Every structure is written in structure tokens, then in C-alpha cells.
């Protein structure tokens, strides 16, 4: 009898589904496009202070930023009380969204290694990076969680892997994400494996040749278009086609120049061939700084830093062998030089700032979660906080030509921002919300002090729950008891008060209660998984019901255990 009732509820969910089939569930619109962030701190420089303002977002655009505005009736309200709003970051150069290729075979199979096909030679400037991007790649969500909203994505490969694109870090498909499908031509001083061009010298020679050829190709095509009579037809060449905008200065070259030598080589090629270049993923600017500053170059600095030298812990143990090693003067001298070298890497950003060179940061092959730690090291080496933040926002926007639509919190720009629990550069702060084009994502903040420990028995007792399954509201009780360190949980649906369902796979770690239960249904069972984030007297979480999908569930504590 009770079983039947439960089954009836579930069957209602199922029955409703075909009725709604005309709706595209892959594309459910947000309930409201309006977001009102109430009373957030906004960082101001000169003078160094925080303002308290409200931010109104409408359909992905910042509608207004002002103090004490009135929230529209239909807006989702985020209480900004004691949180800090920042313009979201822009990653100026990376492979975001493009998965690592699988290991290639040992040696490419070519007939003549001096004349390999273009794709094996690494010469594919016609290739578009966005075609390699996977919208669900983990790197996109990871960047978003670290405060980024926009990436300049360049393709993977060797000498001329293709054209970079600008993407918004939010979207169900790559098309949704694209802000500019072809924003750059990537050039790398990197040879192909075992085929021409395999060395830096051949790459540079080939690049000169391609530049000349593209100029002539364009001239021949124009001449033929003007008057084809008695002229040999120019043959289509997709590589040269893709380079014509480069030699005509309509598409910028992003030259991947990590080392100091690569910086100089890029500068030589640029001055010789005369295209616009942005030096990218640069790790050392120092020896060339005067030239960079004089020519007002745009630099995309690598966020990567060498690991700090670890002080030898053996020293404390005082064992003899390590003491011997310590006393080796050559070792000591090397250690000193290494420390100097690391310091130099840390001070590159500060140097650019002091020389007034505009720079942004690249996130290429870099773990986004390390960003703040590395910024701290750069700031300790003399970079100002404002310059660090500008490099991640407005400078990147200007270098990429996006300053009209993003890079700062301004009326009319894209609603790309993040909300932090404290000033961003504070060690203790973390990002609570990321908002990309008005899409809000909320992150769980690990409360170090408040988090319930595993031994805390305060979750025992009776809790209420409510869950909306495709328009059908279900409420009930969750009864949690604990015996001999083992939790027992029973769930009672208000629609079937006499049929408590026992739960299994129960775990409670770091404030999250996970469990599963079986709901009988027709000639089979429906498995349900619950994951509940418990915060003292209330919880939020999700319930995954069979094939139906995941639904938010919430509730609060009704009573503590009777005994």
C-alpha cells in the first residue's frame, strides 16, 4: 500500500516528462536575467580604499553600479554584505579548453623528411583554435573558479599551429563561448620532430620565406583579379591565404617567446618582416627591457615562476652527512646563484611596471590555483597590487582589443566579475561567486574554523527536507541516528509517512553528508543519491534520482535526538 504511494509519486515524475518534451531541456533559460548584488566592496586605487556599491546585472551586461540602488522586483539578489567584487580576470594566452593530445607515435611517417606535409611540419596557420576546444574541458571551469571570465586560446602545435580565438569561459557549446574566432596568428620558435623545419634556424628561415610568399601570393591574386587575360591562374594555397592578413598587418602575430633568446629572436623577425607582434608567455624580459620599453611593446608575461629553493631540512636534524654537504662551498655558491636567479624571475613583472611597459599574464600550462601564490611572490619582489590587478584585467583587455566589452567593472561592459570573501590578494580570502556574462556560479567555501568535524554528533536528530522534482514538491523528514560510530539514516516522505526508507553508503566528511537509497518503481528500482552540505541547523544539496537528473534539495533541523 505504502509502496504503491511512493511509486505513484515517482510515476508522476515520469509521466510528466513526455508532456514537456517540446521543451529543450538542454537549453533551460535562467529564471531571471537580472542579478542584483547588494552592498559589495569595490576596490579603488589612488586613494587606496573600498567603496560600498550595488551592482545590477541585466542579461549578461552590467546595467548599473551605484550606491543604494533599489533592487528590481524580478532580480535574483546576492547579498554582498562583507564580500568584495572584482572585475573578472582575462587570461591573455593559453590552451584553455584544448585537451592535451595523446602521445604521438615515435616518428612521423613521411617519404622525404626534407619536404613533409604541412600538418606534420607544424605549418597550419589556417587552423582555428576554437575547433579544438571542448566546451566541457576541465580547464575552463578551473579558470572560472580562479576568477577568470575570458581566455585568449591558441592552438597546440609547433611552428605555426594556427589562429587563436577569444572565448568567454561559460557556455554549453564552443559557439556560445566565442567572442572572436580569429584573433591572432600564433608563431613559435619550435621545430617539428625529425622533419623540416626541425631546428630554430630552419623555423626562422621558413618564416621569412612564408612571409615573402604571402606578400607575392596576395599581389598575384590581386593582379589576376584585376585582369586575368593571358595570365597564369594563381593556385589556391590555404597556408598563404591565412598569412596574407599577417603580412598586411590585419592579424597580429603572437610570438611564443619564453626565454630571453626567444625574445630577441622574435624582435629580430618582427623588425625584419614588419608585422605587429605580441611577445607571449615570456619568462625573462630583463636583458631586453630597454628595447621593449622603447618600442612600446605589448608583453604577455608567464605566471609561472621557478620553485623557491627549499631550505635543507636535514640541517635541523643535524646528521653528520648533511652537515658535510652543507659545508661544500661550491654547493653553497650554487645555491646562492640559484636564489638570485629565482629572485630575478620574480621581479620581471615589477620591472615591466617600472619601465611602463604594458603587460598581461598568460595562463599557459599553469595551474590556476597557484595564481595567487605567484602574484604574492611578484608583489613581494616590487610589483604594485594595482599593476598586478591591471595586468589581469584592463591591460589584458587592451592588449587583446577587448577593452570596450570587458576588463573593468563598468556600466555597459560584460557582467564578468567575481565576488571574494575578502580583498582578493589577502591570503585568507577566497572566491565565493564567479559571474561570467551574468551566469552565476557559487563555490563552497571551506570554513576552516567553523566546519563541523567528523566526530561532531550535532547532525543527529530529525531534519525536514523539501525537493522540487520537475514541478512536483516533495517534503518529508530525515532521521539521523548514530550507534557505535555508525550513522543510520531513514527518510520519510510526507506522502508515505508509514514507509521510512533506510539509507546506505552513509558518509559524513567535512560537513557533507552523502548517502543513497532505493525507491521502488514499477518492475524495478530507482536509485537515489543525496549529497547534503550541512551548516549547523540547515543544509543544501542535490539529489540524483535515477535517470531523471539532479535536483536541489534543502532542509533544516527540527529536533535533536530524543535521548
Amino acid at each position, binding site marked *: 500500500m505504502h509502496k504503491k504511494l511512493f511509486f505513484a509519486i515517482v510515476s508522476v515524475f515520469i509521466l510528466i516528462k513526455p508532456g514537456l518534451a517540446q521543451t529543450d531541456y538542454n537549453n533551460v533559460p535562467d529564471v531571471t536575467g537580472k542579478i542584483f548584488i547588494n552592498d559589495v566592496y569595490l576596490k579603488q586605487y589612488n586613494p587606496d580604499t573600498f567603496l560600498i556599491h550595488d551592482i545590477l546585472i541585466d542579461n549578461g551586461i552590467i546595467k548599473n553600479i551605484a550606491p543604494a540602488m533599489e533592487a528590481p522586483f524580478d532580480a535574483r539578489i546576492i547579498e554582498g554584505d562583507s564580500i568584495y567584487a572584482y572585475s573578472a580576470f582575462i587570461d591573455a594566452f593559453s590552451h584553455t579548453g584544448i585537451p592535451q593530445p595523446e602521445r604521438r607515435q615515435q616518428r612521423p611517417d613521411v617519404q622525404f623528411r626534407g619536404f613533409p606535409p604541412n600538418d606534420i611540419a607544424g605549418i597550419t596557420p589556417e587552423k582555428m583554435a576554437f575547433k579544438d576546444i571542448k566546451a566541457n574541458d576541465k580547464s575552463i571551469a578551473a579558470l572560472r573558479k580562479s576568477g577568470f571570465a575570458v581566455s585568449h586560446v591558441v592552438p597546440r602545435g609547433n611552428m605555426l599551429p594556427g589562429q587563436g580565438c577569444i572565448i568567454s569561459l561559460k557556455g554549453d557549446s564552443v559557439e556560445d563561448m566565442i567572442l572572436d574566432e580569429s584573433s591572432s596568428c600564433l608563431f613559435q620558435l619550435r621545430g617539428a620532430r*625529425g622533419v623540416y623545419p626541425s*631546428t630554430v*634556424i630552419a623555423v626562422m*628561415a621558413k618564416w*621569412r620565406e612564408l612571409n*615573402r610568399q604571402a606578400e607575392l601570393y596576395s599581389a598575384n591574386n590581386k593582379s589576376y583579379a584585376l585582369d586575368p587575360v593571358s595570365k597564369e591562374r594563381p593556385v589556391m594555397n590555404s597556408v598563404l591565404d591565412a598569412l596574407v592578413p599577417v603580412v598586411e598587418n590585419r592579424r597580429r602575430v603572437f610570438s611564443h617567446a619564453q626565454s630571453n633568446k626567444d625574445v630577441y629572436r622574435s624582435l629580430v623577425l618582427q623588425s625584419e618582416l614588419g608585422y605587429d607582434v605580441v611577445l607571449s608567455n615570456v619568462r625573462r624580459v630583463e636583458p631586453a627591457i630597454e628595447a621593449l620599453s622603447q618600442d612600446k611593446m605589448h608583453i604577455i608575461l608567464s605566471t609561472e615562476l621557478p620553485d623557491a629553493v627549499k631550505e635543507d631540512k636535514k640541517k635541523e636534524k643535524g646528521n653528520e652527512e648533511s652537515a658535510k654537504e652543507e659545508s661544500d662551498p*661550491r654547493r653553497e655558491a650554487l645555491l646562492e646563484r640559484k636564489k638570485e*636567479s629565482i629572485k630575478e624571475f620574480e621581479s620581471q613583472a615589477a620591472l615591466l611596471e617600472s619601465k611602463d611597459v604594458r603587460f598581461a599574464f598568460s595562463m599557459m600550462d599553469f595551474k590556476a590555483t597557484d595564481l595567487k601564490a605567484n602574484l604574492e611572490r611578484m608583489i613581494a619582489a616590487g610589483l604594485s597590487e594595482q599593476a598586478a590587478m591591471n595586468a589581469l584585467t584592463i591591460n589584458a583587455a587592451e592588449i587583446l582589443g577587448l577593452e570596450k566589452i570587458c576588463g573593468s567593472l563598468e556600466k555597459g561592459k560584460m557582467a564578468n566579475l567575481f565576488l571574494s570573501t575578502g580583498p582578493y590578494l589577502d591570503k585568507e580570502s577566497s572566491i565565493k561567486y564567479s559571474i561570467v556574462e551574468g551566469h552565476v556560479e557559487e563555490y563552497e567555501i571551506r570554513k576552516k574554523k567553523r566546519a563541523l568535524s567528523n566526530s561532531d554528533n550535532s547532525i543527529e536528530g530529525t531534519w525536514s527536507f523539501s525537493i522540487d522534482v520537475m514541478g512536483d514538491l516533495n517534503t518529508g523528514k530525515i532521521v539521523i541516528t548514530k550507534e557505535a560510530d555508525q550513522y543510520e539514516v531513514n527518510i520519510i516522505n510526507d506522502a508515505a509517512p508509514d514507509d521510512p526508507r533506510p539509507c546506505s553508503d552513509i558518509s559524513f566528511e567535512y560537513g557533507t553528508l552523502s548517502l543513497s537509497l532505493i525507491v521502488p518503481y514499477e518492475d524495478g528500482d530507482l536509485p537515489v543519491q543525496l549529497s547534503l552540505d550541512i551548516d549547523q541547523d540547515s543544509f543544501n544539496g542535490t539529489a540524483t534520482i535515477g535517470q531523471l537528473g539532479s535536483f536541489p534539495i534543502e532542509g533544516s533541523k527540527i529536533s535533536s535526538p530524543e535521548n
Partner: protein
Amino acid sequence: MKTLHIYFFVFFVFGLISAQSETGDVLIKNGTLITITDGVKENTDLLIKNGKIDKIGKNISTGDVKTIDATGMYVMPGIIDAHSHIAIDAVNEGTNPNTAEVWVGDALDPYDINIYRALAGGVTISHAMHGSANAIGGQCETIKHRWGVMNPEEMRMEGAVRTIKFALGENPMRVHGEGGRIMPATRMGVEQVFRNAFSEAQEYMKAWEDYDNGKSDMAPEYNIRMEAVSDILKGDLMIHCHSYRADEILMLMNVLRDFGVEKICFQHVNEGFKVAPELAEFGAYASVFSDWWAYKFEVYYSTAYNAAILTKNGVITSINSDSRELIRHLYHEAAKSQRYGGLTDNEALRLITLNPAIQLGIDDRVGSLEKGKDGDVVIFDKHPLSVYAIPQMTFVDGVVRFDINSDPADMRIEVDPNETMPAFMEAVDHEHDDSCLQGLNELLFDK
């Protein structure tokens, strides 16, 4: 369109992002000057101003110029190495038998510690060359050892003659014939690679000439490799050819005669002594080892008298290192020509100064102590041909780049923050180097 065509040439001539290199002033007093072109002058002063030799004479006095007392010491022009592979990041583009378009000037490495070590051996200029994997390896660069600069552009010897590396014999045969199953698999094939390249370049030049003269409407395809080979035919690029066997040396001279190429310097040229009169007649130069051979089959027939025989036959000859180890004692190498062949002091020292300068087309600038020449000078404590001689100070353009009294253990410009052992402690042993085949392990052995 014409401007495009000559662009490649233009950038070599006018230089790239111009790099002004540092020059210095110095007065070296009371030394024994070995001038090479004007005998040996005892107790003589040498003044360098703004990087150039300003005065040579007795009792020169100037105001506040840095003065070095060279009493009892020997002052000679900076040593020049006509064949080396130091200070470059890429030596061989071993993917094709003809890579005339590549240029080691694109791969200069100012951080290479071997530059400093060469300075410690009194070497101020080296000819940074491609290897011998390809019959036509690519264009070389004459560099000044301005240790301490970090801009590769500052290492170039501005105004030096452009050179290109050719290679005969086993190396190109092994890399391409055996390794790539293409021509050249034999010595005949090597000759044919040159003949093909020159013939194609002639056709290439003709096509451009027709276009420039308005005989055709559409521009021919630009080919940077053919541009470089054309420059050889026009006399703008001088050949330096890796060679061992006499028959091949004669073969290449015949090829050059057929195509009207007049200048060549043979490198290694271990059998040069067999064809010395023929080399002299052609006007070819020779750059040899003092006494190094038998490291592969085609180099078994050789002699330490090679340099002396060539010199006595009127061939302008130099002794080179081709090694980061030998480059540190080229003055010893030159001295061997006295033991084997009885050259005079001046003839022996010319092998490592003025003669390599002639071979690199820079003899108007360096190679001897003369007023107006570059201030590239080395001071020895003993006569440089003595086995006891040790270089004390080396100047490039009047700037001290090596001083034995200021020579700390770690002279590297930069260290890798991740290195665990000082990289400069690795062993250097020329017997185990085959510099000419650098970077080819993958092509040859990773199959």
C-alpha cells in the same frame, strides 16, 4: 616587387635591430708587441681608443686612460678560430641535403660558457659554423667573443663577409643516403647535390630577372633556399667546405669553375698536402687541424706537416679548433707547425691570426696589430708559442673580456634555478666531441 626580391639580401647588409656593442680605451705599456705584419717590437706601448688601435710606439702617454703594465709580457692580436661551433643553439638542420637558407646567426647563444673559455685561450673571434650533415649546411656567422652581453645581436662581427658551409664525403652520405634513403648515398651524389643546387638557382635567377624586366606578369614563387644559392653564384656568399680527401677537393673546385664561383675556403682538408699546388692555383684557402685525424675512415691519410706544406705552397692556411676544448689552446696548435714543418714564429702565428682573418674576409679589421684595426688583443706572460705561455688578459674592442686575476669559479652569466649540479663542471674532452654532427642523434639513431 623588385624590392621584395632583394629584401633577403638587404637585411644581411644593413643588420637587424641594430645592436651597438661596447668599446673601450686602454693603454698597454712596455710589452713585446707581436704585430704579425710589422715584426716584433720590444718595450713598446699600444693604445686602444674607442675600441680601435690608436697608436703603437714608445712612451705613449695619455690622460686618464686605463693603463696596464705589460713589462716582460707578450702582446699579440686576438686569436681567430676559422672553424667552431660554440655559442650556437643549432648546428645541423639535418632534414635535407641542401639547407642553404638556414643561418646560425639566428641561433646565437651569448650564454655559452665556452665563449669565456675561448677568451681564456686568447681567442677573440670565432667562425660559428653549421655542421657537416648536409652537403649545403647553411650560412655561418663570424662572432666576436663579447662575453657578458645578453643580446645575441651584439655578438655579431658587423661587416664580416657572409659565409656558407658545404660538406663533402661521409657525413652527408651517412645522414641522407643511409639515414634518409635519398641522394647523396655516394661521393658522386654529393657532387650532384651541388650541381643541382647551382643549376636550379640559375633558373630561379632567370625567372626573377624575367619578372623584373616585365617579361612575365606573375611573380615567380619566392624560394629562400634558392635565394641563398643564388648569392653564392653572385659572389655574395663565400663557401667554407668540410673536406678530407684530395679527389673530392679537386671535384669541388671543378664544380665551382663550371659555375663561375671564385672563392672557397676548404675546412679540415686533411689531404690538402696532396693537392697544395692545385689549391694555390685556384686561390682556395685551407683551414686545418694541427695533428688530428683518424677519427673516421676518410680521415686516415693525413699528416701534421699539412699546415706547413700548404703554407710553403702559397696556400693561405689557418689552424682551427672545431672543438670547445681545442679552442682554448690554439697557440699550442700553431706551435706544432714549428715542430712539424719548421715554420717561422711569424708564419706559425699567422695561422691563428691574419690568415683566418683573410679566410673570413675581415683582415682589414683584425688579425694584426696595426693602427686603425679593432682593439682585439691578448697579453701572454711568455711567448705565445712557448708551451709555458698562459694568456693573462684578453680584450675585444678595447674592453677587458678575460682577466686571469679576476676569474672566479663560476663565470656563467645565468644559472638554471632548477639545476642540481653546477653545469660548468661537466667534462670537456675534444676527442669525444664530433661537433660537426651535433644535434643529429635523433635523425641518425632514433629509428
